[in-house]
């Protein structure tokens, strides 16, 4: 033992004259810039997807309804409520939040005598830290808990596709589909928005589990046309997909296609466990073999009804076959979906025009109920001077002729009036035909709407241009110039705005800013109208029409003439998935109607 060891501990005394190291009032100490303190939520950007609730291992988060926040497309209307009796401030909820609305402030002291106060809805229940900038936010950059970038869908290059009508989107491989499916957070925001309320997160999960038969079963619960929808659906689901708030929305449509593509049609019956339905002896007539008619027939057949579809054209599918071009939706895929429906005993009478060949009355007396999904097939005209010339066509007429395999008129210089998807379809179809006929493309599409508000999908515009069509939006047509009975071109004037303040269609033009598109053929693609001539006056009297002339139906698509149900484009949409949803709902309505009657 050294003397030093006895003396040296006394050096501790020097601290007596030093400042104490303890903080006297820890209450006023500020948390660090990144401190994980109390929750904040930007209630406007939160969409109530519940992903925060999902990840929380403490079940500290509950999504609850909040006064003043409405449920709408892309917003469940719920907001997270946090229970500080459970929370461990891991901030995984913040990191996973799909909208980045959730964060933690750096506040960490909260005194209250009411224990329930510590269960609160951040952003709704006002707190002292609501405006505190400091605190935990999702780390940036390149820090994500799930993929925010879409797996690229392989496509044919423009030069490989611009002469033919072969399908140019080639479909996901297994690995690609699984990688894309992995991004889903299973919030179900998409399901709520999908008109058919498809079990989207569920079938995406089936892809992850590589159980594509289960995937197919889920698809058919709400949609008997998955090959078709997997290709051309307007995918309202993707518009609201919560991943879209900070990245690319899920490729929901392509994933649906992947499931349908991977299941061979021979196995459908076995997978879907169909074919054991007992006929219930009731008969339903369906007018039109578009998506609404097919969907109604499918769900009715599953319930045991004897269904007959009457179709005025030689093949089934309605606008899906006679409108949508083959390069987007190949006929064999339409056939795959429709043949399966027919295999359940649904009959189709082709080339029968209800109203002329058979009257609606006859159907009424021969069947227990009638569903009509006759669509919008009458082209609408701009009615500008010259629009009655023989070289002015409706887009839908031309598209139908193409599908029927007929040769249509294709001139060297064509102008298409319209900025929607139908306009893009005819533009791209004509571009292909021109390319074949003349070895070059000279088709221009022009619309009232400027490029940023054009109704066509962005990718349609981009792809049209890749195929060398010209898209020149923002012009209002004024007249078609005709010389010696030949079209010379289209006069247009600058369109300044399309809608007024209240959102009503009321275009404003700059008459001085004009332009002339040279052309020898013009196609109008500004919308379609319904043709319900087949509904006789007596039945018409029973049906209610709204002030704008549209047919009024109840939630089951039942009209005032109780035996007559109407759905599809005439009522809602216009798109395939609304038709499918309508047909399904109408099938349920028809079943109710017939059972109550009998």
């Amino acid at each position, binding site marked *: *033992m050294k003397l*030093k060891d006895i003396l040296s501990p006394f050096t501790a005394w020097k*601290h007596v004259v030093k400042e104490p*190291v303890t903080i006297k009032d820890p209450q006023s100490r500020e948390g660090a810039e990144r401190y*994980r303190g109390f929750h904040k939520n930007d209630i406007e950007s939160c969409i109530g997807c519940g992903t925060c609730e999902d990840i929380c291992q403490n079940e500290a988060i509950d999504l609850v309804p909040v006064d003043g926040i409405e449920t709408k497309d892309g917003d469940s209307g719920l907001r997270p409520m946090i229970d500080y009796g459970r929370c461990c*401030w891991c901030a995984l909820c913040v990191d996973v939040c799909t909208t980045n609305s959730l964060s933690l402030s750096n506040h960490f002291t909260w005194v209250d005598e009411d224990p329930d106060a510590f269960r609160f809805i951040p952003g709704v229940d006002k707190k002292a830290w609501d405006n505190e900038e400091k605190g935990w936010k999702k780390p940036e950059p390149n820090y994500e808990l799930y993929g925010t970038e879409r797996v690229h869908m392989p496509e044919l290059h423009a030069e490989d596709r611009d002469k033919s009508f072969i399908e140019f989107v080639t479909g996901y491989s297994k690995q690609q589909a699984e990688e894309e499916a992995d*991004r889903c957070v299973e919030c179900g925001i998409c399901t709520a928005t999908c008109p058919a309320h498809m079990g989207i997160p569920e079938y995406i*999960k089936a892809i992850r589990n590589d159980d594509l038969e289960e995937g197919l079963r889920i698809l058919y619960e709400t949609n008997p046309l998955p090959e078709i929808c997997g290709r051309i659906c307007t995918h309202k689901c993707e518009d609201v997909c919560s991943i879209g708030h900070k990245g690319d929305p899920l490729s929901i449509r392509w994933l649906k296609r992947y499931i349908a593509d991977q299941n061979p049609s021979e196995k459908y019956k076995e997978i879907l466990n169909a074919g054991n339905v007992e006929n219930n002896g009731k008969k339903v007539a369906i007018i039109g073999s578009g998506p609404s008619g097919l969907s109604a027939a499918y769900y009715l057949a599953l319930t045991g009804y004897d269904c007959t579809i009457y179709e005025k054209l030689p093949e089934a599918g309605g606008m899906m076959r006679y409108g949508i071009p083959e390069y987007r939706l190949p006929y064999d895929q339409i056939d795959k979906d429709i043949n399966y429906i027919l295999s359940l005993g649904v009959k189709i009478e082709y080339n029968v025009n209800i109203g002329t060949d058979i009257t609606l009355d006859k159907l009424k007396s021969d069947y227990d109920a009638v569903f009509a999904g006759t669509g919008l097939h009458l082209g609408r005209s701009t009615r500008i001077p010259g629009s009655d010339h023989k070289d002015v066509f409706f887009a839908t007429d031309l598209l139908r002729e193409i599908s029927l395999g007929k040769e249509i008129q294709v001139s060297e210089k064509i102008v298409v009036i319209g900025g929607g998807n139908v306009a893009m379809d005819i533009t791209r179809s004509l571009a292909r035909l021109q390319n074949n006929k003349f070895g070059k493309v000279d088709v221009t599409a022009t619309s009232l709407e400027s490029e940023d508000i054009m109704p066509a999908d962005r990718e349609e515009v981009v792809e049209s241009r890749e195929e060398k069509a010209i898209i020149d939006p923002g012009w209002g047509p004024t007249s078609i110039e005709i010389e010696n009975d030949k079209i010379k071109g289209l006069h247009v004037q600058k369109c300044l705005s399309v809608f007024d303040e209240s959102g009503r269609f009321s275009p404003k033009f700059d008459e001085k800013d004009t332009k002339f598109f040279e052309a020898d053929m013009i196609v109008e693609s500004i919308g379609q109208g319904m043709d319900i001539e087949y509904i006789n006056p007596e039945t018409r009297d029973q049906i209610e029409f709204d002030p704008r002339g549209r047919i009024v139906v109840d939630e089951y698509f039942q009209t005032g003439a109780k035996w007559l149900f109407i759905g599809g484009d005439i009522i809602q949409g216009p798109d395939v998935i609304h038709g499918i949803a309508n047909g399904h709902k109408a099938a349920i309505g028809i079943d109710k109607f017939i059972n109550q009657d009998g």
Partner: protein
Amino acid sequence: MKNKLFKITEDRSQFPEKNADGKIDIDLSSHKYLKLWQGPQHPGITGNMALELTVLGDEVMHCETHVGYLHRGFEKLMERRKYIQCFPIVCRVAVPEPDFNEYCFASAMEELAGIEIPEMAKWLRTLVLEMSRLQSYLMWIGGQSGAFGSGIIGQWANYLRDLVLDRFEELTGGRIYHMYQLPGGVRGLLPDGFKERMEETLQTIEKFMGDIDKVMFNNAVFKKRSVGIGYIDPAWINKFGITGPNARAAGVAKDVRKDYPYLKYADLDFDAIVGKDSDIYTRADVRRKDLLLSIDLIRQIFAKMPEKGDIKAKTPNVLHWKVPKGETYSRAECTRGEYGYYMVSDGTEYPRRINVRGPSYTHAIALLEKMIINTNIADVAGLMVSLHTYPPEIER
């Protein structure tokens, strides 16, 4: 009191004879023995566990350890949690050193999933593991000196530890449970000015370590109570699975950082700290030097780490991450020795089995029960702290 400080005379004439196997027969009805419970609530215990001591006079004749007071069922709980949901749980397995749990859990998952984390994340993980070591030793040093009656070191060390926790708060958003090493990487880059503030903290610690050297290590009382006491025979090291400073103080250079270099340790310049005498004093000294080594390593890390870089690798969606089927063992050197996670995945979204190897398991049970025999009751606490054990990691 008077002479005792410098001279302890032993009178063992009253003590029972040992049997041939070295054990003694304890007959409680002889009234010579007393049963004494140290713990489960006791300042001399490093957490909640109990030592059931049988003493004769003031000497321990027999000890049985009792654990179970802290059992939270973490391992079982994890089998019912998705992997990402285990992440906020694992740090809670060992309160004073959450980061080793985070690291072992994440790296086991990454290994099974075949994920390589970015360079930057590796450096930051190495940094927090050393910061964690630093604050853990600071907590220990207060306990060690406190167990031998000196309160002052604990006061200083707690202050110093708080400074490190301040840095943790800046970097990770939390003081105790950092939840920073997420599977795939880490959750943040260094905040602005962090290195400077850390350097300031390191200098403060170094300054106080000088004082601690004088007041604790060059202290007649501490030496008297720690030199030659609590001897660990090097032959026991492998037999009992002794690791960390407990092994190194016995001259066995076991250090996972050196033996199986992980993260960026291969790029750092250091040697495993070893001692010779294998008593309480030597173990304390090895830890003191290891603490200073951590300071050095943190400086090396700052000098060598890149300025920029990604903090997280691309991983599957954490909400349904299916870790590929397989099993692995991932380890790291914590202040108490080898920390490890044995992870089994059956290819689902939930771990099939996770087993945590906390070094305290061997140190605080089998080893302690062996070493404690013939220890003075007053030295039991000091002996236990000298093994640096944490009951929470014994019972997961």
